[in-house]
């Protein structure tokens, strides 16, 4: 006997945070109080406003090069959003394409593509990411490529399972029998059914991408200094952890909030999309 379902409202808080970060990313360049790249060594290590020695001028303090932390956080939002979205779009497209091809066509095509996907998934992903990043070199575009390469396989696996399920649905079988064109079947029947899963995966992957991007940057394999990327900021702040703790802490909080919101939203979407799913976490 299933539990009675209680209402599962849209998670306003996470959605709000994500929209806020996206808004910041959009208008970033126009609202930054200071140039994120510009610093004056005289102003280095000013603490945030709520600490002794802080000032209204630099609400989140300044870093070791005298740059305003708040401005860098805002600029970092833009980078994270761009990286997150493009990585998700790229891996999503590649993964879905592979999944639909493999799942729908079946047979040898399926076997080959799945072996490829399995191989991809059995490689230690961060290691591959680092190796790939090392090869391609630093930069936002390269970072996105690395993330896309790292991410498409899990889309492929899961969506292929969905395609296989959808393939056996009555109306799809009928469409195939009545000789509907392949494109029509894929677009009108298969795709809408996997869309739900795709959206959930994309939302969750968005959060993961941000963390991965910042991890790679932290290791020196993502964007390079002086780009104000959150992960890179944490890395740069590490040396000064005992004297200027806010340099590493604040960007980390940004990453945390963004990723947490994406995860919460993704979870809620997953619950909404699955009619059989009872209320859990």
């Amino acid at each position, binding site marked *: 006997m299933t539990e009675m379902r209680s209402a599962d409202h849209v998670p306003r808080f996470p959605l709000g945070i994500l929209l806020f970060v996206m808004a910041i990313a959009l208008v970033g360049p126009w609202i930054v109080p200071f140039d994120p790249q510009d610093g004056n060594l005289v102003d280095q290590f000013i603490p945030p406003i709520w600490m002794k020695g802080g000032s209204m001028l630099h609400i989140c303090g300044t870093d070791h090069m005298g740059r305003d932390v708040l401005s860098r956080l805002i600029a970092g939002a833009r980078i994270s959003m761009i990286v997150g979205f493009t990585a998700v779009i790229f891996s999503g497209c590649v993964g879905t394409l592979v999944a639909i091809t493999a799942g729908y066509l079946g047979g040898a095509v399926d076997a080959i593509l799945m072996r490829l996907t399995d191989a991809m998934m059995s490689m230690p992903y*961060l290691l591959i990411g680092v190796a790939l990043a090392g090869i391609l070199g630093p930069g936002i575009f390269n970072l996105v490529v690395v993330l896309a390469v790292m991410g498409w396989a899990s889309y492929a696996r899961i969506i292929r399972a969905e395609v296989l399920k959808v393939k056996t649905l009555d109306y799809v079988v009928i469409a195939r029998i009545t000789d509907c064109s392949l494109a029509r079947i894929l677009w009108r029947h298969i795709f809408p059914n996997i869309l739900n899963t795709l959206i959930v995966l994309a939302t969750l992957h968005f959060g993961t991408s941000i963390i991965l991007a910042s991890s790679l940057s932290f290791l020196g394999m993502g964007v390079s200094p002086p780009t104000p990327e959150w992960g890179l900021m944490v890395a740069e702040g590490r040396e000064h952890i005992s004297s200027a703790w806010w340099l590493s802490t604040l960007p*980390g909080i940004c*990453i945390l909030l963004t990723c947490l919101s994406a995860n919460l939203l993704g979870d809620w979407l997953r619950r909404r999309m699955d009619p059989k799913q009872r209320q859990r976490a």
Partner: protein
Amino acid sequence: MIRYIFRRLGQMLITLILISAAVFMLVRLTGNPEDLLLSPLASEAERLVFRTVWGLDQPIHMQYWKYITGIFHGDFGTSIYWGEPTISIFFERFPATLELATFAITLSTTIGIAIGVLSATHPGGKIDHFGRIFALAGQSLPTFWVGIMLVLLFSVTLGVLPTSGTGGVAHLILPGLTLGWYSMAAFTRLARSSMLDVLDSEYIKMCRVKGLPEHLVVWKHAAKNASLPVLTLFGLQFVHFLSGSLVTETIFAWPGIGRLAVWAVYNRDYPVVQTIVLLMTTAYLVVNLLIDVIYALIDPRIRYD
């Protein structure tokens, strides 16, 4: 079953060959080690010697063939930087990573599963609330930040734990926590949802209908059924720890494979990178196979013939 294992081993071989080829090619795509290791003033003759010694002058498929045949003789290549066999460099560092990985996985499974199960058996209680928040927060935090924050808290502010290096248990704690954090959250989440799913099933209801004592219901029936997905996660996480502790080892200057990998990529020491990827992938595949075998031992419905 035996036939299945052999079949899987065969598939593993194919996968490994594919992967080794892919990595081999990719690693050579850009960046020449000679630019990094030879001084810019090196003469053309010296460069030629360098290339010949390292076989870099050969066509790429020849290099690959040499590499593959070498492996079957136990020769995984030689580190360009150190001049020693990559395999021994690897195994020099591996024990440290293994130590850290074992510690982290023990920590994350025990705590994670405990919280997860308690969360499921006492829904709505304090542990449940804590567990859910913990699981969520844990999976949204980047490992490197957790590490740095832990260092900030325990080493810088409180001064109770060391910031880096190996040594006794004290040295294991922070890196272990950092590495295991995400995993702990994942285990909590999975144990909880797996347990909830199982506790809601008809056969558990049947156990209660039969009037079985609660400890049998939970620890005999529910636990065994809920353990299957957790087992899979265990395999995945352990291998991840073995190969993916790049960030943790970097932060804590832990002398393991992760640090070696980052270093090798920076310095374009191809053979080392190749060896690490190959061996780590092998580890992943082997662990996967083990997990599948254990699965079949637990679940009588799974028969591979």
